């Protein structure tokens, strides 16, 4: 009996967005009298931080500070249409819609500023800190907050913008499968290290280390959070979770978190990553979606690491201690024949 260590790798790509039925998102933006901007959507924040990254994209395009942008979302009476938050699509689709809306609102803002400054619209620029200034003319500047107020009370103008983005519907050829199912692809390569206890069959994950290529990070802390959370979820898929432990037998279904096992803090390994940025051609500021993919590569990386540690090739999930022990027994039985043991058909 021994504790055997091994490492395994997996490399994956993952599509951003979808195509069936078309994949649209819309956004509206308007300035309030106080000079803050409200972005109105119907896309939901699932806890991944959509509101925050959309505020960043809106602020970037408007040329104002992120603290001056508020996200009003998830109401079908006020928010324009959105397909939904899934398919690793929200930052990409909503972000593109928000850029379009913010460009229109920014134009309205600069038109008013041009009148107030008695300057040409084309000579104006924003500094990203809440000021509009005349290019090459130090001292000639005005605050966005002042323009927003003047627009409403002096000029009788609205500072607002509409934005939409849509990937058109693309039918699938039923004979060949030819299709255009996504907008871009993000990438990941994960290296997992495990320790397998050959007496108990328990697999301990030592570390999950990954490189990700995500186009553009709008918010690196949130990207890191997705990668760490996804690695945990992938590890949980690989070693712990199922609603149907004896599938296809439908019995013994867990009913709560005391029966449906997931790794706790004690089992959670070192999780770390490096992130590359190769901007996509069609995402907002080059974004690619990574919402879903972060659970993917950890699973085969862990399973490949178990093989590296033990010589037991696992073909099914989750990899329970029982499965590992049966694999080790099969390996001993087949040792003289030199056949690679497999859990398939066991």
């Amino acid at each position, binding site marked *: 009996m021994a504790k055997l260590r091994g490492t395994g790798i997996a490399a994956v790509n*993952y599509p951003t967005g979808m195509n069936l039925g078309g994949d649209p998102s819309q956004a509206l933006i308007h300035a309030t009298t106080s000079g803050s901007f409200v972005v109105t959507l*119907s896309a939901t924040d699932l806890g991944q931080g959509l509101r925050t990254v959309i505020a960043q994209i809106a602020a970037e395009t408007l040329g104002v500070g992120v603290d001056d942008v508020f996200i009003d979302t998830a109401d079908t009476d006020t928010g324009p249409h959105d397909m*939904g938050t899934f398919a690793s699509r929200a930052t990409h689709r909503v972000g593109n819609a928000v850029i379009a809306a913010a460009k229109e609102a920014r134009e309205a803002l600069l038109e008013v500023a041009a009148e107030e400054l008695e300057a040409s619209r084309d000579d104006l620029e924003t500094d990203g800190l809440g000021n509009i200034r005349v290019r090459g003319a130090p001292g000639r500047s005005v605050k966005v907050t002042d323009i927003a107020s003047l627009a409403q009370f002096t000029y009788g103008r609205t500072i607002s913008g509409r934005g939409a983005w849509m990937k058109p519907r693309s039918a*699938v050829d039923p004979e060949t499968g030819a299709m255009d*199912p996504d907008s871009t692809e993000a*990438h990941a390569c994960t290296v997992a290290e495990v320790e397998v206890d050959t007496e108990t069959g328990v697999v301990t994950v030592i570390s999950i280390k990954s490189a*990700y290529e995500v186009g553009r990070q709008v918010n690196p802390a949130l990207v890191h959070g997705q990668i760490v959370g996804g690695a945990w979820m992938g590890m949980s898929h690989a070693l712990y979770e199922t609603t149907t432990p004896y599938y*296809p037998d439908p019995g013994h279904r867990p009913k709560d978190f005391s029966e449906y096992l997931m790794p706790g803090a004690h089992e959670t390994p070192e999780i770390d990553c490096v992130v*590359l940025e190769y901007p996509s051609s069609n995402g907002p500021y080059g974004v690619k979606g990574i919402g*879903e993919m972060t659970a993917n590569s950890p699973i085969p990386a862990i399973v490949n690491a178990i093989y590296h540690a033990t010589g037991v090739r696992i073909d099914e999930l989750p990899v329970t201690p029982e499965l590992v022990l049966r694999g080790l027994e099969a390996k001993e039985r087949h040792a003289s024949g030199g056949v690679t043991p497999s859990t398939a058909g066991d």
Partner: protein
Amino acid sequence: MTADLHVVGRSVPRSDGVGHVTGRTLFTTDRSFPGMLHLKVVRSPVHHALVRGIDLSEAERVPGFVRALTHVDVPHNVYTILGLIGVEPEEEFVLAEDRVRYKGEPIVAIVAETEAAALEAVACVRLDLEELPAVFDVEEALRPGAPIVTHWGNNTFMYEGHPCRRVRFGDVEAAFARADHIVEGVYNTKPIEHAPTETTACIAVPEANGRYAVYTNTQALYFSLDNTAIILQVPGSRLHFIGGTVGGAFGGKVDVIVEPLATLAAMKTGRPVKYAFARWEEMQVSSTRSAWRIYVKDGVMRDGRIVARKVTSYADSGAYSRQTPYALTKHAANAAGPYAIPNVSIDAYCVYTNHVPSSAMRGFGITMASFAIEVQMDRIAEAVGLDPWSVRFLNAYRNGDMKPHRKRAEDATLIETMQAAAAFVGHELTPEQAAMTSDPRREGGE
């Protein structure tokens, strides 16, 4: 470009973070309304049965009972979530009619003054069921004589005349014939639960103007609104859906399960109605990730190059397909993996069984393809005597390559990502691997 950016690329604190960690974020069921009723569901206790009778007499005598809803109360009782984008046929029953197809299928909805009264009345409903043979394995479900789950006579979803989503690229059989090695694997995965912290829930509130405000933790407000309008046969303009922060979803809140019944109950009673899954319902009755069985057969040359890949996949959709037909399409587009393979054949089957329906989940159709393909890559490496890194560098797709679904690769960076991972963990690459790029032109053409 990065140098010009002010806010994009900065780790600004998330705007809702303080609310989350101090418990002040408002979730759907944190709301309460005067006169709010509670809805609970009578569910099938068996996997497959004919419904012979429903006796509500005892339930109706429970103090606090307000009313029961059965399929006759649902204006358009048979629906398909993806019907909005043209997927056919309509197949799932909001409330069961003459047959139940999975353990936990809703048969009767009980509306009561309190949650306790609703649960007591649910327990008092007597069902007369005649159990039928059930099928639980994807390949058994496709054999002649298997119990039929659907109402159209076989257990597969049909893709424009085919029983599976197909990809055909090159000639796999010819390539297998000239390959030095044939490497085969069979990969099985079990269903899993999304396990969100916040269970699926909504509250439907009648408004004085004849409209209904529906507070919901759906991932897709308009998708849920439009499906609810179809099921209740009302104009979408009479519905007002309000979401907010969702307490975890992972694909589990794309199904439209609670909103139609809660809104129907609000219409029938004129009072706000709350329908929230208990934890056991989230675990045992809400959609799962599909179980998968994936057969992979690869033709490989002596140097490790993959010349043909044939994938036959079966996703267990359970009793109703929900989002699974689309998952198979997405699977088919990605099941060859991020590799340049000149001959690919994929058959991806959406199979009906008597399991709880599966549906969308994070990695939709791809997570389990990645598991199968990436374990298979290590099998190939072993067969030809390469290390796991080398077999992947050798076969990595690059910009300009035609993918099996006939879309040319544009944003490929698999090679750069593997190089970064190798550097991150201290794995030494060969000089050739270290010099590779995903853009063949940068290497002087090919």
